[in-house]
Every structure is written in C-alpha cells, then in structure tokens.
C-alpha cells in the first residue's frame, strides 16, 4: 500500500534531478504512471489493505493519526484516473518535444496527492493532500507563463478559501465526534445532526462548500474557464478529466451517505431539504454551464463550461439519493474522465499544430488532421450522451433515478442541459474541423505517432465503455457492495433503470445502430457515382473568379454562431455574474484594509487605535 505513495514521491525527486533532460523526465513520468496503474490493478479486491502511522498526540480530544487504506470507492476513482493519466503521459512525450518549460515534476507531485486524496483514511491526511494539490496546481498552471498568472491566482485563492473552510469543518467534526477517521466521523456527523441540527448542518455545508469549489459547481463555476484557457494543454487535459473530480469523491463517500440517511423535513414527499440543496446546485450548474458554453468563442473555455455542466449532472444524480442515481453519477465520473480526456487531447493537438484556440480563426482542419477529427467526433458524440458511445449510459441512469423520484424540475433541467450540449458541441465541431480551410493552415500536418496512439486508444475506450458498460460498472458495483450498499453486480452490457421495465441492453442498441448504418450504406452504394470536387467549384456557381478579376473568397459561419439565441439570454446572463460579486467583495476588503493601513501610517490613527484598544481592555475588565 505504502509503495503506491512512495513511488510518485521518488519519481518527483528523480525528475527534479534530471529536469534538464526532457526525454528522461517524460519517460520517467510515463514509467511511473505505468507502475501506479499496475499496482492499483493488483490491489483490486484487497479492501483490508491499510497503512497507518500513530503519532500518539491528541487534538481537540480526537486521536491524531495519519493513515491510508484501500477504500473501494477510492480505488474506483484512483484506478480510472491512473488509466487516463497513463494515456495522457504517452501524449505528453510528443507534445512537450519543443516546449520550453517542463511541467512533469510538479505534475508528478499532484499525482502523489491524487493517490493520497483517494486513499486517505482520515481527514488529517486528506487535508494535507488537499492542500498539496492546491498549491502545486498553481505552479503547474502558470508553468513559467506570465499570461497564465491571473487564472492561476484566481484558482489559488479559491483553493485557499476552500482549504480554510475544510480546516474549520474538520476541527469542528473532530471536536464533536472525537475522531478524525472519515467513515466513523460520517456516523458521528449523523448523530450531531440528529441531536443539534443547526450545528450539524453548518458542518455539513462547510464540507460541501469546499468540495463544490474543487468541482466547479454553481457559485464557483468560473475557475475552469480562466485556468483551462492559459495552462499547458496536456496538463489541462489531466485537470479537466481527473482533477475536477476531487470534489466528487469526498461527496460520494461522506456527504451522500449522511444526507441520504438523515432525518430532516421532506419536500412534497420526494426528498429532504439537503437533497434539494444539492440538487439545485447541480441543476443550476448544469443549465448555466450549458448556456455559457454555447456563447464562448474560445474552444478551451467552451469545454471548461461543458465540464461545469457535467459536474452538475453528477450532483443531480447524487440528489436523487437512490442507488440507480448514485451508480449513475459514479459511472458518469468515469465516463466524463474518458470523454473529456479524449476531447482535450484533440484540442491540445490542434493547438500544437496551429497555435490557435479561438474557434472562428480555425476551420476545415478535417482535411489535414483526419484522425484528430475522428477522435473529436466520437468525443462529442459521447459528450452529447448519444448511444452507442459512453456518456449515454450514465446520463440515462441519472434521468431514470430523477424520474422515479418525481423530481421533475431536476429532470427537465437535465434534459435542457443535455439538449443544449448538442448546440455547443456541434458548434465546436463545425468551427474547428469543418467548413473551409484558411490559407494559413494549408501546410498543417497530422500529429506525430506518440500523440496519435493515445487518441486512438481513447476512441477504442469510448466505444468499448459505450457498448460494454460492464468494464466500468462491474468494478463499481463490486466496490459499492464492499462498502455495504445493497447492489447487484452489474452485467456486461445491460443497464438497470429504476422504473418499471427499464432495462436497456447497450449491445442491442449498438447492433441496431450498425444495422441502420448498413442499410443506409447499401442505399448509398446503390446510388449513382459521386465525384469529389473542391469546395470552390460549387460555391462560385460554375464561374471562374479569376475571369471576373476577383479572388475566391472564403466564408465560414462561426463567429457568433447562435446570435439570435444569445440575444434572448443576454439580459439574464448580464444580471448573474459571479465574478462581479467576487470583485465587489474584493473591492470592499481592499477598501477596508487600506483604511486600516492608513490609520496605522498616520500618527493620529495610531493614537486612535491605541485609545480604542485601551477602552476595550477597560470595558472587558469591567464586564469580567
């Protein structure tokens, strides 16, 4: 168990030693990720593995021990994130061939904290790893670029805010339950809520706020777009697929069991108040993320908002508090990891070849990068939740759970978000890869082999998980059973819903799709021959532009793709801007602090403060 944590640390040190030699560092990085994946695979099922270190101290009446243990749900998160990380690290070898700075050393440290978070046995270890992840990602995002500093600072301050809340929450929990261990403290928190409801709910909300900050849920949905737009693309792939799930994992092991079994007032006989709090956070994130994604012009920002929306789905699944919804959410965690990694790898490839991330400046890249296009196409089909690719099964389960619980508002929000997803996903596809190729990208080539192989692997995984969801659902249900949930081990291709007669066999869906394509393919081949002509042929209506003394012009419809739709939403989106709220809070703090600073600087202020202090002292003395 402990070597799982030691290997990344040792790798970090050796990468730092060889930092000048780019090939060595990335090879070490790849090898270490390979080892981690292998090791995780080998400890599957050994749920009693643990390692702890007793300090013998007591803080706030609770034993202060550090420990890691093979938690089944943690294993599920860790294994699939290790798999994705391994694939990204193959990509990184090719991607970083010409880059000046080297992100691998910090990244390895983040992978260490990644494993630490997923396997932490107690809140103290969890907090340490959480903090490590927070400040290291600051350096990984900036990566020596001044431009990235703003986004990274924003992320860092949110992380620090979250960490402060987490520290308060952990101390309160330790003081009132007498333990720092995660699972016993969940039972402890339940008892606190039952005896003194207000205190318990405050502790729970403190935890919840920390976690939703990391997962970019509604009031904190701004950081992904700031960070993803500037960070190094391969690291951003890791961040958008794996790191954004750090908030989801503690929610799944701590918040969901507590909220699911707590006895609070219920709304319309469907769910308790806290369930609705989680649900509304999820629903607002899903809808708002979708709307904002529709209006972006930068492709990385677009997919950043798409991540916000997907985190919203996961919270919606949690809010149903049924086993189908819970399974669906955890399934969606892995699906989102896979499809977001695939999409961001292709974006990284596009940026690698063209150096451009504004969508309207690209176009027609399918002629030059067909493999990248295919990966992106499968990625967006998966992200839109269309069978037979992954992403459908988990969304289907979440909707089933919401419908069976009669949570109609959440179900409608979910459908709104996933139909809106077609809009922004297609817009990205059309603007980046379709349309007409600008002259300046005539010389663009397909990506090199080290980058093509990971993309191909991602395509295979997306199709595999889409048709045979058992490869994810079997480990998931095994893990849930090991934790104590009453679930059946899932079969390879069949998904169980929660309504009557709701079982779908994704294998049959796939066969039917293939049958449909074969029939329409036959029609295509029976039809008369077709001829491939350049786009200008049709476009100039058979005339030669040169004869008219003009040049063939290129038009792509991609800048304000949904202008009429945007005009409908402009008033709404202008009125809710979380950034303005944060900025005004920041301004007020700044004002307060400069005022206090000013008091210190001037003589009369110091005298004033001194007299106030003396007065308070005297008053305090009198009261006591």
């Amino acid at each position, binding site marked *: 168990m402990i070597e799982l944590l030691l290997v990344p640390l040792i790798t970090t040190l050796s990468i730092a030693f060889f930092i000048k030699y780019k090939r060595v560092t990335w090879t070490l990085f790849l090898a270490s990720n390979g080892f981690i994946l292998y090791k995780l695979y080998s400890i599957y099922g050994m749920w009693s593995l643990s390692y702890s270190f007793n300090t013998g101290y007591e803080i706030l009446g609770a034993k202060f021990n550090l420990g890691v243990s093979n938690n089944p749900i943690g294993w599920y998160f860790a294994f699939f994130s290790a798999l994705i990380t391994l694939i990204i690290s193959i990509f990184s070898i090719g991607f970083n061939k010409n880059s000046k700075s080297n992100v691998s050393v910090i990244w390895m440290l983040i992978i260490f904290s990644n494993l630490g978070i997923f396997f932490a046995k107690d809140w103290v270890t969890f907090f340490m790893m959480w903090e490590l992840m927070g400040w290291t990602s600051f350096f990984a995002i900036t990566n020596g670029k001044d431009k990235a500093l703003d986004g990274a600072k924003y992320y860092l301050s949110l992380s620090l805010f979250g960490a402060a809340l987490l520290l308060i929450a952990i101390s309160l929990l330790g003081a009132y339950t007498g333990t720092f261990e995660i699972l016993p403290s969940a039972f402890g928190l339940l008892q606190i809520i039952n005896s003194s409801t207000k205190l318990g709910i405050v502790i729970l909300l403190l935890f919840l706020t920390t976690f939703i900050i990391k997962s970019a849920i509604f009031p904190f949905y701004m950081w992904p777009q700031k960070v993803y737009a500037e960070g190094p693309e391969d690291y951003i792939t890791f961040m958008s697929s794996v790191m954004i799930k750090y908030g989801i994992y503690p929610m799944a092991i701590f918040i969901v069991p507590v909220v699911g079994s707590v006895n609070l007032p219920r709304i319309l006989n469907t769910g308790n108040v806290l369930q609705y709090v989680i649900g509304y956070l999820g629903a607002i994130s899903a809808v708002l993320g979708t709307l904002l994604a529709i209006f972006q012009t930068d492709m990385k920002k677009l997919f950043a908002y798409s991540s916000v929306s997907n985190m919203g789905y996961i919270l919606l699944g949690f809010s149903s508090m049924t086993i189908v919804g819970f399974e669906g959410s955890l399934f969606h965690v892995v699906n989102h990891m896979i499809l977001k990694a695939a999409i961001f790898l292709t974006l990284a490839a596009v940026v690698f070849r063209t150096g451009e991330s504004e969508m309207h400046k690209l176009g027609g890249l399918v*002629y030059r990068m067909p493999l990248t296009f295919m990966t992106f196409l499968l990625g967006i089909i998966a992200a839109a939740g269309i069978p037979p690719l992954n992403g459908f099964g988990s969304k289907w389960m979440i909707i089933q759970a919401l419908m069976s619980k009669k949570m109609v508002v959440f179900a409608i929000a979910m459908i709104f978000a996933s139909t809106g997803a077609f809009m922004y996903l297609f817009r990205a596809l059309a603007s980046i890869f379709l349309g007409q190729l600008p002259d300046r990208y005539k010389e663009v080539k397909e990506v090199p082999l080290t980058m093509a192989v990971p993309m191909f692997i991602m395509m295979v995984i997306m199709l595999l998980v889409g048709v045979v969801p058992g490869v994810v659902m079997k480990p998931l249900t095994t893990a849930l059973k090991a934790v104590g949930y009453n679930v059946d081990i899932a079969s390879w291709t069949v998904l169980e819903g929660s309504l009557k007669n709701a079982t779908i066999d994704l294998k049959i869906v796939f066969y039917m799709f293939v049958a449909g394509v074969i029939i329409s393919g036959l029609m295509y081949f029976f039809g008369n021959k077709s001829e491939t002509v350049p786009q200008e042929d049709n476009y100039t209506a058979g005339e030669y532009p040169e004869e008219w003394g003009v040049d063939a012009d290129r*038009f792509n419809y991609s800048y304000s793709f949904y202008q009429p739709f945007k005009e409908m939403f402009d008033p709404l989106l202008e009125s809710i801007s979380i950034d303005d709220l944060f900025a005004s809070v920041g301004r007020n703090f700044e004002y307060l602090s400069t005022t206090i600073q000013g008091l210190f600087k001037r003589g009369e202020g110091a005298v004033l403060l001194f007299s106030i202090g003396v007065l308070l002292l005297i008053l305090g003395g009198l009261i006591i």
Partner: protein
Amino acid sequence: MMAVLRVFLFSLFAIFIGLLFMGIGRKVIARIQLRYGPPFYQAFLDVGKLFSRKSITHNFVMDLGMVMSLGGLLATMLFVPIAGHVAVKTSTNLIVIMYLMAIGYLGMAMAVAASGNPNATIGVSRALTMMLGYEVPFFTVMLGLIIVNGTSSLELISQSQAGSILNWNMIRFPLSFIAAEIALQAMMGEKPFDAMIAPAEIASGPMVELSGKYLGLAFLTHAVSIFVETAIIVNLFMGGASNIFTFVLKQFEIYLITVFIEAVFPRFKIEQAVKFLWTVPMGIAVLQLILILLK
C-alpha cells in the same frame, strides 16, 4: 437470420410509409392552396430520380455524415413499437429513442457543415436552436406520462390505454396532447417552425449543397423521421393499435394535422419560435404536469 429479415422489413416499411405521407402531404397542401398538385406517388419518383443521377461531394465527412444520418434514424425506428411489434426484443425505452434520434440529426448537421457553404451552417445553427426549443416541452409532456404510468417503456405506455377510446391519453390528458402537437410541428420542421429551411432566406439551408444521392438520402431521412415522430405520438396518446393498418391510419391523422397547419401559416423568426415554444406549449405542459403531480 429472422432478426436480420425483420430489421430489413421494418426499415423498408418505414421508408415506404414516410415517402407516401410526404407525397400525400404535398397533394393536400396544393389542394388547400387551390392548385392541382403533384400525384401522391411523387416522392417515390423524386427519390428514384435523385439516386440515379450523378452527384458531387466535397470530402469523406459528407458521405459519412449522410450515411450516419439515415442510419441513426433507421436505428431509432427499430426501437419504436408499431402496433405492438418491435423489430427486436427490447424495452422500447423512451429516453433511448429520444437520444438515438439525435445521432441522425448530428450526422446530417455534420455532413452539410462539411460542405463548406455558410448557408448550410446557418441552417444547422438554427436547427439546433430549434431543437432546444421543442425538446424541452416535449420532454415535459413525456415526463408527465412516465410519472403516471411509472414506466419509461413506450410499449407499456401504449398498452396502458387499451380498451375504450376514453382510456387514450389524448382524452385523459388533453393539455399534454396539445403541447405535444405543437412541439411535433417544430420537430418535423414544418411551418411556422421552418426557420432552418427558409428557402427564401438561406437557400434551403442544410440542403443547399446536396445533390443526387445525397439529397436522396436526406429525403429518406426526412421520410423516416416523419414515420418515427408520428409513431411516437400515436403510441403516447392514441393507444397504439391492434393491427398495422389502424396504426398507419392514426399516424396519418397526426401527419394530416401538421400538414394543415403547415399549409396556412407564415414563418417565425428563430428567436420568436424558441420563445413561443418555451412559453405556450411549455406552459401547457407544465400545467398538465402539475395536475398529474397533485393527483
């Protein structure tokens, strides 16, 4: 072997009925507008002609997209129960049907965007906006029926209305039916919701660069989508049917309503259409949903 045969038969049947409806629809519109109109089998002649002509394409995405679009809709059709028969044994889940239909539209959108004509892309952008417009009220309608029946299987919902005509959801939940009808009008892209085609404005939008068999495939896709959408409505609101003839007759009734509306209405601008869909049908659907939840 039997399954393969069934899949083929169902597909051909859907294409045949869809094309027949399209032809009759054109005739009906012509008579409403006091024209003579083409013969009812005109759509078959059109498709035959288009497939026999030479055509041009711009890249492999166009070919792939057109094949994917008809393939996706045919796959959707195989999940819809037709008078109690389904091509293969499945649970005919409504959510699966709704999502599978999207792959057809995605394929079509991809193919026409690859043609590189801005008019086509404008058409697609409008079509996707419209999709968000109608999908939300239509899902709200479905949600009500799913909650009443406690199942999302289309076949079970249609069986639950067996017996007399009074059991039909059309009679039991008239508000839902009205909302679904309006959403259906938008789903089929008929007037007043045809901003994505708008021949006078953007030169038929998505169809602008399609020729020969590509246009033929687009025709067939439209035919199958008519079949699928009317079949969903018949199953949801008119209790399915005991034999195929009654089923097709009911489908035709539904199609006729859309054709009548198509023949006399002008066109909404896209934002007007979305606003209308989110206020009138959505309001009606939500009202019915609240009534269902309170019951």
